[in-house]
C-alpha cells in the first residue's frame, strides 16, 4: 500500500497503537499481507518498533508478511477433520491444484495452509477460503473449487448448496454453515429481543441484578467455570474511571462450536447480556472479541448492533434506563487459540501479541487499557439474560447440586447426529452417547484437547463441573480410531503450535512429549518413556495460563485412561532404548569433512 493510503488508515484509527489489529486487518483485506515497507511506515506512524510489529504479525495465524495467494485456503487440521477425510481433500489440492502445503502455488494463485479447528466440527472437513466457510468438503468438491479458482470466480459463486438454516441465510451473512441444533432448552428457545432489559432490568437496581446472578450460582461457560456473580461483583467493587464488558467469542477449543450457533441465532441475547453485565458492574463500553474464523458473521453482527443502536437499546439510556449508557463494538481476532484466555484476549484487543498476563492483577481489577474489565463467554451472557428474566431461583433449580443451569454442548466425531445440544448439567456420558446416536464408542474427548479422554468404562460419569467438566466440546471416537495416532498426536501438535512461548515449560515440554510419542510409535518406547512423560507432564502446572496448565493433558489423560494402548507398543524386557542413531547423527559432519561416519 502507498504511504498515503497507510497514513489514512492510521489516521482513521487516531494513530493509536491499540488499534493495531484493526489496522492490520484493513491492510490484509486490501492486499492479503503486510509488506516490509508497510511495516516501516506503520512503525513511524504508530510509534511502534518494527520488531514489535513483526512479532505481533507473526503471532497470529491469519496475518502474513508475504503473499498467501489470490485465494487462500485454510484447511482445518483438527482430529475431527482428519477422521472425516481431510487428507483426501488436501491431496486433491496439492496434486491437482499444484498447491504447496503451507505455501503458495508457483503461479501465486492458491495458497494452502493448515489451521486448527475453525468451529465447524459438525460439518467437517471444512476450510476457510478468503474468510468464507466451505463445509462438508469432498474430493469432488475440492476439484470443483480448484476449477473455479482457476477461472477466477468470486467466492459466493462457488457455493453449490443453499445458504444454511436459520439466520445463516441472513442477507448480511449469506453463509452455507448449518446450525445443527438438535436439542433446545431455555437458552436456545425463541425469545423476544431486549424484553428482559425493557421489562425487568429497567425496574431493578444494579445490585438486584447482581443478586440474581449470584443466586443462580452461574459459572463461566468458557470452560474454567469461575462464578460469574463473583466476577461481576469484583469488577463492580474495583476502582476505575471506566469499566469494560468483554464478550469472549474467541471460541478456539477444538470441537467447540456452540458459540458459533449462539452468535448466529441469538446475537440479541448476547448483546442484552452484555448490557445487563454493564448495568450490574457500572460499565459504559463493551467489546465483542470475535475469532477470525467467524469473520463471515462480522457484517451481520455489526448490522444487528447498529439496528439495536437505532432502536435505542445501545447508546444513551438503553431501553430508557436513566443514568446508564452502554455501547459496544466488535474486535476481530486474527487466529490464536490462546487469545481465548481472558487476559490474552485483552492484550490482543490492545493491539499486541495475545500473550496471557501474569496475574494478579486480574482483569476485573486492571483489564483493558488498565480499566476494570469483565470478560465472559458468549453463553454466559445468554444465561445471564435468562436468569434475570426468570429469576436466580429458577436457574438454581436446574442442573445438579454444584453445577446449576443448562450447558450447550457441541457434539462431533463418530456419531449419527453431530450438532448442538442444550442439556441440563447432570446427564451421564452414556445418556449423551445414546442421544447423539454414537455406536461402538471407544473414547470420548470431553472439553476439547485441554479436557479429559474418557474410556468406555467411564461412561456413567456425569457432566458437571466436579466430574466431567466441559466448555462445550464433546468429540466422539469409535472403535475404528486409534487413540494415540488419531487423537493424542493431533492434540499435542495443536498445543505445540498454539503455545505463545512465554513460559518455558509450555514452550518446550509439549515438544519433548511429542518426540516421546513418536519414539513410542516407532517401536522404540520403553516403560521409562511412559514414566518420563508422566513426570515431565506434571511440570506443566507452573505455566502462567490455562493453555500451559493443560497442554500435556492429552498425554496425561490418555496414559491414565488408555494405558494399555501405550503398553501394547512398548519394547519388553528393557527399560531403556536410545533413539539416537550414532551413524545418522555423525553422517553430515563426516561427509562435510571427508571422513567415514562412526558405525
Amino acid at each position, binding site marked *: 500500500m502507498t504511504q498515503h493510503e497507510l497514513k489514512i488508515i492510521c489516521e482513521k484509527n487516531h494513530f493509536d497503537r491499540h488499534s493495531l489489529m484493526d489496522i492490520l486487518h484493513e491492510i490484509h483485506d486490501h492486499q492479503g499481507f503486510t509488506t516490509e515497507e508497510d511495516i516501516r511506515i506503520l512503525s513511524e506512524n504508530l510509534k511502534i518498533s518494527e520488531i514489535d510489529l513483526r512479532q505481533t504479525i507473526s503471532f497470529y495465524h491469519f496475518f502474513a508478511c508475504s503473499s498467501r495467494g489470490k485465494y487462500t485456503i485454510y484447511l482445518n487440521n483438527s482430529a475431527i477433520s482428519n477422521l472425516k477425510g481431510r487428507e483426501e481433500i488436501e491431496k486433491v489440492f496439492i496434486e491437482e491444484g499444484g498447491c504447496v502445503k503451507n505455501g503458495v502455488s508457483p503461479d501465486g494463485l492458491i495458497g494452502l495452509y493448515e489451521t486448527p479447528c475453525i468451529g465447524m466440527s459438525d460439518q467437517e472437513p471444512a476450510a476457510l477460503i478468503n474468510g468464507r466457510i466451505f463445509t462438508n468438503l469432498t474430493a469432488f468438491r475440492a476439484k470443483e473449487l480448484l476449477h473455479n479458482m482457476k477461472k477466477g470466480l468470486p467466492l459466493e459463486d462457488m457455493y453449490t448448496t443453499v445458504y444454511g438454516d436459520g439466520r445463516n441465510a441472513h442477507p448480511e451473512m449469506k453463509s452455507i454453515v448449518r446450525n445443527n441444533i438438535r436439542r433446545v432448552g431455555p437458552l436456545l428457545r425463541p425469545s423476544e429481543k431486549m424484553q428482559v432489559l425493557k421489562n425487568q432490568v429497567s425496574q431493578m437496581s444494579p445490585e438486584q441484578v447482581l443478586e440474581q446472578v449470584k443466586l443462580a450460582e452461574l459459572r463461566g461457560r468458557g470452560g474454567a467455570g469461575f462464578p460469574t456473580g463473583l466476577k461481576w461483583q469484583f469488577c463492580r467493587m474495583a476502582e476505575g474511571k471506566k469499566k469494560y464488558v468483554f464478550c469472549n467469542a474467541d471460541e478456539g477449543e477444538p470441537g467447540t462450536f456452540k458459540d458459533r450457533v449462539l452468535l448466529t441465532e441469538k446475537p440479541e441475547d448476547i448483546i442484552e447480556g452484555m448490557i445487563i453485565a454493564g448495568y450490574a458492574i457500572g460499565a459504559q463500553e463493551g467489546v465483542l472479541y470475535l475469532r477470525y474464523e467467524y469473520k463471515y458473521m462480522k457484517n451481520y453482527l455489526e448490522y444487528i448492533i447498529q439496528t439495536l443502536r437505532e432502536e435505542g437499546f445501545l447508546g444513551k439510556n438503553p431501553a430508557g434506563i436513566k443514568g446508564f449508557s452502554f455501547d459496544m463494538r466488535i474486535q476481530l481476532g486474527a487466529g490464536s487459540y490462546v487469545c481465548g484466555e481472558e487476559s490474552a484476549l485483552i492484550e490482543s484487543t490492545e493491539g499486541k501479541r495475545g500473550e496471557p498476563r501474569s496475574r494478579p492483577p486480574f482483569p476485573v481489577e486492571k483489564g483493558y487499557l488498565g480499566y476494570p474489565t469483565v470478560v465472559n463467554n458468549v453463553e454466559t451472557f445468554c444465561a445471564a439474560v435468562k436468569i434475570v428474566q426468570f429469576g436466580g431461583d429458577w436457574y438454581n433449580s436446574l442442573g445438579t447440586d454444584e453445577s446449576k443451569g443448562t450447558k450447550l454442548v457441541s457434539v462431533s466425531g463418530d456419531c449419527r447426529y453431530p450438532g448442538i445440544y442444550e442439556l441440563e448439567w447432570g446427564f451421564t456420558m452414556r445418556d449423551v452417547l445414546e442421544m447423539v446416536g454414537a455406536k461402538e464408542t471407544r473414547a470420548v474427548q470431553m472439553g476439547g484437547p485441554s479436557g479429559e479422554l474418557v474410556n468406555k468404562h467411564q461412561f456413567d460419569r456425569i457432566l458437571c463441573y466436579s466430574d466431567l467438566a466441559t466448555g462445550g466440546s464433546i468429540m466422539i471416537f469409535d472403535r475404528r480410531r486409534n487413540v494415540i495416532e488419531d487423537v493424542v498426536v493431533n492434540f499435542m501438535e495443536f498445543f505445540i503450535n498454539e503455545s505463545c512461548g512465554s513460559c518455558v515449560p509450555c514452550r518446550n515440554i509439549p515438544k519433548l512429549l511429542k518426540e516421546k510419542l513418536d519414539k513410542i510409535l516407532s517401536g522404540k518406547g520403553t516403560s*521409562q518413556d511412559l514414566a*518420563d512423560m508422566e513426570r515431565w507432564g506434571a511440570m506443566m502446572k507452573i505455566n502462567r495460563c490455562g493453555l500451559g496448565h493443560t497442554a500435556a493433558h492429552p498425554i496425561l489423560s490418555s496414559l491414565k485412561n488408555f494405558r494399555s494402548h501405550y503398553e501394547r507398543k512398548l519394547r519388553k524386557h528393557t*527399560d*531403556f532404548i*536410545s*533413539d*539416537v542413531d*550414532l551413524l*545418522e*547423527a*555423525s*553422517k*553430515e*559432519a*563426516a561427509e*562435510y*569433512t*571427508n*571422513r567415514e*561416519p*562412526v558405525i
Partner: protein
Amino acid sequence: MNKPVVATASLAGCFGCHMSLLDIDERLVELIDLVEFNKSPIDDIKKFTKDVDIGLIEGGCCNTENVEVLKEFRKKCKTLISLGECAIMGGLPALRNDITVSECLAEAYLDGPTTVNEHRILPNDEELPIILNKVYPCHEVVKMDYFLPGCPPSADLIWEALVALITGEEKEIPYALIKYD
C-alpha cells in the same frame, strides 16, 4: 567397608559444574573421607580401574567421543547422574541444534569474519571425534538415574545429593537450592 567410588566426566560442558563441585570448600576434605574417586578430572585418572558406584556427568553429547565416554560410564557406574543444564537439556551448546552442522563448521573454520584459513582445511584428523548433527542431552543416549539442575548446580545441591546417595538416606532438598528464577 569399602568407600563408595565416584567418577566424573565433563562432556560438552564448560567445566563449570566441576568448579561448582570444588566449591563445596572445606567439605572437600570430608568428601575425600567419605568416597574414593576413580576416573575423573579431579584426580586426573584417565581410565576406569574398577566398577564405580556414582557417576557424575557434566555436559551433553556433541560428538562421538562424548557418546563413547557416556556409554562407558553407564557400563561402569551403578548410579549415573546428569549434573547441570547441559547434561540435562543440552544447554548452551544446544543452541546450534537449529543450525546444520555443515553451516557451523563452515562458519567456524571457513567463512567466519575473523577466520584465516588459506587452504580451506577443515579439521579432519582421524584422531578427532566427529561432531554430531545435534547436541543430545545425556538421557537420550543412555539411561540416567538422577538429574541435578542448575547452571551450574550449586555446591550445596551437589553436596546434599552426594551425601544422600552415599548414606542411602533420602533427603528433602530445600526449594531454594533448585529454584532458578
